[in-house]
């Protein structure tokens, strides 16, 4: 290659102002001039702008994310690859990650959500793992907001349209509605894959002279600047003009790509592989080369498969066209790899090679259009220590805290109204639109605490749960993050699984505001504290900043997914009561509180103060549940979370194929009735067991310094009786719970 870098005819004149239009600050532009010792070409400016975007570089968060790095021996693959992996036994590794697609989904809900699924799925099979389960966490504006219905329909349609068509079951998720998300919804997508130990693929380039192979769909103009101008900036009132920055998904192409890549992996000729996600060809090529010291990469852009003939190098390098991967192959085995992709009717073209130059170079029509140090795009990207400061007294909470005394008596009517609340009601309207069965592993699908998959050929099961708690995080970003980890880990333990590891998607506002940076740092600290206390390392994650519209930030929303293992999947437990006559017990870990509860959001009575969570007791509860279900003593287990004890108890009665009742006394005889019935805040579990098993069950909890207090029994009569105040027909309660969404949204099916 020539060392002379050339501009192309028609390229705009590059200066500080043009850089600013690319989202590159004056300081950052000066830094580019220093690195290159000259003015960048237009192509190079584009490349820097996406590689240095918040979305790709993590420039505001990197410093703090170090805090989450797990101990090496706990994980098979940690940060630095496309996703993390843990050993789940019998020779299998589980590879998983969660990622945001918030801004694209707000601008174009169907395609935004669909390509969010497509992107996270590629992060999994790029590691050689067969994707076997998807989850998602969705946050919409209030139900009465005029845009919510449109966004909900589009996002759910997009997740289903993509996930169903690539043949990966969507086995669970969560949906929440709150006015705090009116201007900025959240779409966080999770995928888990399985790969045999020793067959995991890397994204670290090796071997000077090895070919760089482009596979998958052709490159078009869609998604240019998705990472920089869409994902790394806050919204103004109207964001419609950003629609062209949203990519368009082709799940059929993705399905072919999954099969072809997994088949190609079997050849052993893949040295490294990475998907072309955010910042497309630029990030995949620079990141693979950047992971090895001293290596460079040369790209011949004339060979890139194109949808239109006249794409410029700038457009080719920045395009975020979907369903594309970049492979570093073993030299001499190109045709072996290419023939696999041709079998699946996919493009596979050698477009470059690995060099020993430490340079990232791109050629087009005989000219070198970019020539930069590889590391300047990766580790050398700007790193900020942004000022962080706790908000002052006048700080407006991003979620409303109603400090008035409760406006509604804590009894039957409050229970009915809570079950009719879209945040607590059945999400069947949503998950009925997702294929939860394909691949034939779904033991517990959507609608119980955690989803459970079997691992074929073994006795084992995997339990998965995604959770968030923005109300708690908005009161206290540190305790809220701890609460989120505890709740998702507890859900996994309720199913009988030992929680093994977590992945997180950290959704926050504009990090250039000190109070947002403070929320973020406190959130990360909370995650670390909870992860350590519960023994669940963080193995992968994603940060989404700039979730703001017109200066109004979303509440801090760290979304956590926990994955656990059940040694014998035959011993899995669901949240539903199984038999009349079973004894019901409650295990409280922390006192229930109305702060950040759904009850307080509806009726008032909240506080702006959140009690600390006793992490040792949460860890003990998890241990006790895993032990008890492993011994087959537990008929049902359900955590007390959204809606509190009374809602949890009602949900226990709503088994998919049967309906039971329950008769219990109040779990606490003293204290505020509203808090006892509807309080939240990591406050324990409701378990049921055969009468004969209760003594042993209580002994297990006692050994973990916890008390399982017997409060009543499961009844065949369809009536829920709690103390003297609540006596309701569970048929009626269930019909309220089941119809709350359909009543508001119309029937589906």
């Amino acid at each position, binding site marked *: 290659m020539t060392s002379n870098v050339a501009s192309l005819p028609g390229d705009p004149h590059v200066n500080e102002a043009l850089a600013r239009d690319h989202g590159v600050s004056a300081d950052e532009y000066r830094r580019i001039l220093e690195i290159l010792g000259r003015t960048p070409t237009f192509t190079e400016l584009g490349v820097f702008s996406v590689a240095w975007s918040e979305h790709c570089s993590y420039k505001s968060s990197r410093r703090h994310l170090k805090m989450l790095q797990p101990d090496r021996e706990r994980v098979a693959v940690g940060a630095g690859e496309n996703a993390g992996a843990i050993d789940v036994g019998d020779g299998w590794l589980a590879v998983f990650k969660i990622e945001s697609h918030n801004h694209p989904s707000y601008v174009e809900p169907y395609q935004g959500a669909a390509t969010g699924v497509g992107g996270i799925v590629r992060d999994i099979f790029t590691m050689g793992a067969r994707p076997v389960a998807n989850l998602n966490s969705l946050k919409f504006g209030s139900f009465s907001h005029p845009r919510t219905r449109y966004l909900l329909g589009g996002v759910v349609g997009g997740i289903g349209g993509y996930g169903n068509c690539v043949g990966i079951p969507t086995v669970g998720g969560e949906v929440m509605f709150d006015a705090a998300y009116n201007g900025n919804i959240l779409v966080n997508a999770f995928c888990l894959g399985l790969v045999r130990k020793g067959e995991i693929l890397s994204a670290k380039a090796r071997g000077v002279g090895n070919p760089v192979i482009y596979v998958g769909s052709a490159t078009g103009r869609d998604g240019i600047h998705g990472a920089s101008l869409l994902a790394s900036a806050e919204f103004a009132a109207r964001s419609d003009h950003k629609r062209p920055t949203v990519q368009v998904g082709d799940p059929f*192409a993705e399905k072919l790509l999954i099969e072809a890549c997994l088949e190609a992996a079997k050849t052993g000729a893949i040295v490294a592989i990475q998907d072309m996600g955010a910042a497309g060809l630029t990030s995949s090529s620079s990141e693979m080369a950047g992971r090895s010291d001293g290596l460079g990469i040369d790209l011949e852009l004339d060979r890139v498969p194109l949808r239109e003939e006249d794409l410029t190098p700038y457009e080719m390098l920045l395009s975020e066209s979907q369903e594309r991967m970049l492979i570093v192959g073993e030299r001499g085995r190109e045709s072996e790899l290419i023939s696999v992709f041709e079998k699946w009717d996919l493009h596979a073209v050698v477009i470059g090679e690995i060099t020993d130059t430490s340079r990232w170079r791109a050629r087009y029509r005989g000219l070198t259009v970019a020539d930069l140090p590889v590391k300047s795009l990766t580790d050398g990207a700007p790193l900020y220590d942004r000022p962080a400061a706790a908000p002052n007294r006048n700080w407006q909470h991003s979620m409303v805290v109603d400090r008035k005394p409760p406006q509604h008596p804590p009894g039957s009517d409050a229970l009915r109204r809570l079950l009719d609340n879209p945040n607590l009601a059945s999400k069947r309207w949503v998950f009925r639109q*997702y294929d939860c*069965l*394909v*691949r034939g592993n779904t033991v517990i699908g959507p609608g119980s605490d955690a989803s459970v998959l*079997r691992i074929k050929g073994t006795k084992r099961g995997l339990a998965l749960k995604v959770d968030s708690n923005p109300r708690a995080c908005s009161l206290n970003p540190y305790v809220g993050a701890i609460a989120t980890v505890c709740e998702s880990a507890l859900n996994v333990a309720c199913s009988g699984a030992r929680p093994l590891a977590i992945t997180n998607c950290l959704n926050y506002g504009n990090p250039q505001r000190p109070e947002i940076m403070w929320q973020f740092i406190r959130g990360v600290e909370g995650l670390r504290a909870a992860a350590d206390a519960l023994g669940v390392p963080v193995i992968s994650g994603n940060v989404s900043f700039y979730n703001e519209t017109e200066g109004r930030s979303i509440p801090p929303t760290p979304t956590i997914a926990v994955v656990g293992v059940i040694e014998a999947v035959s011993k899995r437990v669901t949240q539903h009561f199984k038999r009349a006559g079973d004894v019901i017990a409650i295990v409280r870990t922390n006192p229930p509180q109305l702060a950040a509860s759904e009850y307080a959001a509806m009726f008032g009575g909240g506080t702006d103060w959140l009690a600390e969570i006793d992490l040792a007791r949460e860890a003990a509860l998890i241990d006790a549940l895993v032990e008890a279900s492993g011994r087959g003593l537990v008929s049902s287990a359900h955590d007390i979370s959204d809606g509190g004890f009374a809602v949890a108890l009602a949900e226990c009665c709503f088994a998919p194929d049967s309906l039971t009742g329950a008769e219990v006394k109040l779990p606490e005889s003293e204290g505020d009735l509203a808090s006892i019935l509807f309080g939240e805040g990591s406050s324990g579990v409701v378990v049921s067991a055969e009468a004969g098993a209760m003594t042993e069950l209580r002994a297990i909890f006692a050994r973990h310094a916890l008390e399982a207090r017997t409060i009543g029994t499961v009844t065949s009569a369809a009536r829920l009786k709690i103390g003297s105040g609540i006596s309701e027909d569970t048929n009626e309660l269930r019909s309220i719970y089941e119809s709350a969404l359909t009543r508001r949204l119309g029937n589906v099916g």
Partner: protein
Amino acid sequence: MRWGVVTFPGSLDDADAVYALREVMGQDAVALWHKDESLQGAGCIVLPGGFSYGDYLRCGAIARFSPIMKSIIGFAADGGLVLGICNGFQILCEARLLPGALTRNRSLSFVCEQVNLRVENAKTPFTRSCRDRDLLRIPVKHGEGSYTAPESEIRQLEERGQILLRYTDRTGVPTEATNPNGSLHSIAGIANQRFNVCGLMPHPEHAVEAMLGGEDGRRIFQSIIDSAP
């Protein structure tokens, strides 16, 4: 008898059908590739669920022109057993091996759920291990499963006993509310006039293990096994 399960580009439940046949039903099952013409000596062909060729034109519209379908059309003409599940049912309709068509669900949304099915004719190779009016619980998962045909055609299907399964409630009564997609006459599965080609919207391969939600799908496969020449 050997089973052949076809993989089109975009097939999704092909691996699940092979697993159900091999691991659960103990059958000899082979995967057939859409670009090949050989049926590898299979005695029953399964066209699995999925989105063949992306289903971007009409469901099953492109798959019917694939090389393997030429062989399957000939195989069916010779009386060979063919079972189309979901997208496979759509392909069989497009290939004119079965009458009628499958259109967008009444709700215009994808639907995935367990349904109750009533056996309408237990004297066919696909239902013979059942009795008439038996109830089966098997899941559906599709966006375009609303069965439709001219009224005269439907009448003939009814008269000749070609309707094999109907969506019903838990007591075996077809109702508007228990019809998941708006199919005419609550039709969930049909056979051709010769009773060697069958199309089902429900997925028997996803109802073969109690741990995964039920075993009623085995009765469809068992019927075919019992019918093997």
